[in-house]
């Protein structure tokens, strides 16, 4: 994986910058946020953006900026948990299935097909809705929906890699399957999966916010971008700014992950995919 970073790519640095910014806000939320994100003060409710409250206050008088900063914590940790678990699960299942083939592969792939047969948000909604609301239930629902895509991609990459001469050579030398898989197969199938995981971060954050918006995800008073929009929607007439900033935070994060994913694909793929994609 040789990275050829183009000299002039402001978009790449901008999106990486946005992500680092949100990650730092998530890590040091307690130090950065000007106010307590959950402290209600009804005297200050629905205040327009001002010096003390740069993004205004919500219907309970809570500082919107502080809630967005703390909200980064929820969104990014949902994204990381879901994507890393799905990636590990999908990689393990897909690799075994692709490497050994046969009836195991047939069965696994039909299960994967079945999971991919549902529109993902819909299945996640059904599962999260029935599990009951809450952080861990949301994460579980999204993993159940997410892993199959990684499994399919890992499997098809492994199928291509295992026919390569260096794998045959390693096997010819009497190297055990586990060693071959860990040292020769997996390192060579990682690039497309990393690209998928990067774009997947954006998608998972978007889905998590969507589910929380519908009331099936993270519950108030925990600051979460999607549920902030849900709580704010009744005040859309009197205080439209309540609706603007949390959405902007979601969009910027997702956009940065999508952009990064696209750029990574170009960097990791020796073929010029920009034209076809």
């Amino acid at each position, binding site marked *: 994986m040789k990275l050829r970073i183009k000299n002039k790519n402001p978009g790449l640095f901008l999106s990486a910058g946005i992500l680092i910014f949100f990650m730092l806000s998530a890590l040091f939320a307690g130090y950065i946020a000007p106010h307590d994100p959950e402290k209600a003060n009804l005297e200050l409710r629905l205040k327009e953006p001002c010096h003390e409250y740069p993004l205004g206050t919500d219907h309970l008088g809570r500082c919107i900026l502080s809630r967005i900063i703390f909200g980064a914590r929820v969104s990014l940790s949902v994204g990381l948990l879901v994507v890393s678990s799905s990636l590990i699960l999908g990689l393990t299942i897909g690799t075994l299935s692709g490497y050994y083939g046969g009836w195991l592969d047939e069965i696994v792939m*039909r299960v994967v*097909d079945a999971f991919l047969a549902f529109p993902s948000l819909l299945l996640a909604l059904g599962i999260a809705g029935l599990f009951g609301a809450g952080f861990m239930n949301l994460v579980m629902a999204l993993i159940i929906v997410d892993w199959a895509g990684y499994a399919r991609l890992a499997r098809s990459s492994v199928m291509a890699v295992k026919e390569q001469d260096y794998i045959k050579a390693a096997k010819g030398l009497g190297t055990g399957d586990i060693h071959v898989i860990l040292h020769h197969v997996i390192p060579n199938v990682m690039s497309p999966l990393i690209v998928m995981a990067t774009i997947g971060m954006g998608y998972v954050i978007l889905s998590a*916010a969507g589910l929380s918006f519908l009331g099936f995800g993270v519950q108030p008073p925990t600051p979460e971008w*999607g549920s902030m*929009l849900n709580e704010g929607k009744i005040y859309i007439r009197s205080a439209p700014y309540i*609706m*603007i900033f949390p*959405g902007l935070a979601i969009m910027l994060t997702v956009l940065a992950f999508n952009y990064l994913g696209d750029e990574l694909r170009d960097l990791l793929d020796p073929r010029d995919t920009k*034209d076809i994609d």
Partner: protein
Amino acid sequence: MIEFITRRLLLLLPVLLLVSVISFSIIYISPGDTAENALTNPGGGIDQRAVEEFRAKTGLDDPIHIQYIHWMGRIIHGDLGKSYMTGEDVSKAIFRCFKVTLKLAVISMLVSLIIAIPLGILSALKKGTAIDDVCRFFALAGVSMPNFWQAYLLIIVFALTLKVLPSSGYGDGGIADILLPAITLGTGYAAVTMRLMRASMLDVMQQDYIRAARAKGVPEYMIVLKHALKNSLIPVVTVAGLNFGYLLNGSVIVETIFSWPGIGNLIVSSILSKDYPMIQGCVLFIAVIFVLINFAVDMSYAYLNPKIRYETKN
């Protein structure tokens, strides 16, 4: 081609079977007893006698696999059961709502094509320039924008500030009522379609017949409009037209916001009210539609690009 289609059709059977198992068993992940959940009144009290009767009546006292077999048996006859809430036939409710969703989906698709086709062409023709970058940035922004946020931005502008469109509701189902939800759903979709249009146009512009037309001295705009456009549109319209899955996904949120009485709205309300037969029916119905559409997309890809037929032996 026929062998390819048959093979893919056969592969659909186990998938559909598994899909039905998932759709059926999804309600059992709900913590607690199914019958008690369904009958719990808002105060939290449960009438044990009613629960027993309910179990016996709905077959919930049978073991799960027996319940599944009964459920499947009824589905084969087109019966998805009755709603716990309204007593309405689940299949009837689904078809009623699906028609409404379909209407929204078709208009959204038109909106997306109106945005995507010109931008995709522009992006392809100006490949590598600032115009291309801007178009591609908008496409990326379109996919990244949460539709539940975009919906409220549109409401703020068109319904609350300009007061030209209603903020929600089905009304008489006319164009004014459908416009905001369709734009919300259509722009995200347009982003995906635009990339497809750009790729397809780039591909066509490299063909020999375009070079021949150029050599003949045909003006560039004629080449684009007369020769390239038609050919590059075929895959875009086929795939965009069939990729309804994306719209079904989005309809869940968009319909809830705009109180659009479609299937997305139906499924959210049935989850909230724990209307189990309705949840199972909706999930199964949408998944089956989704499987069939994906099958059609695969087939059209294979038809348009013969290489796939030979390469994917799986």
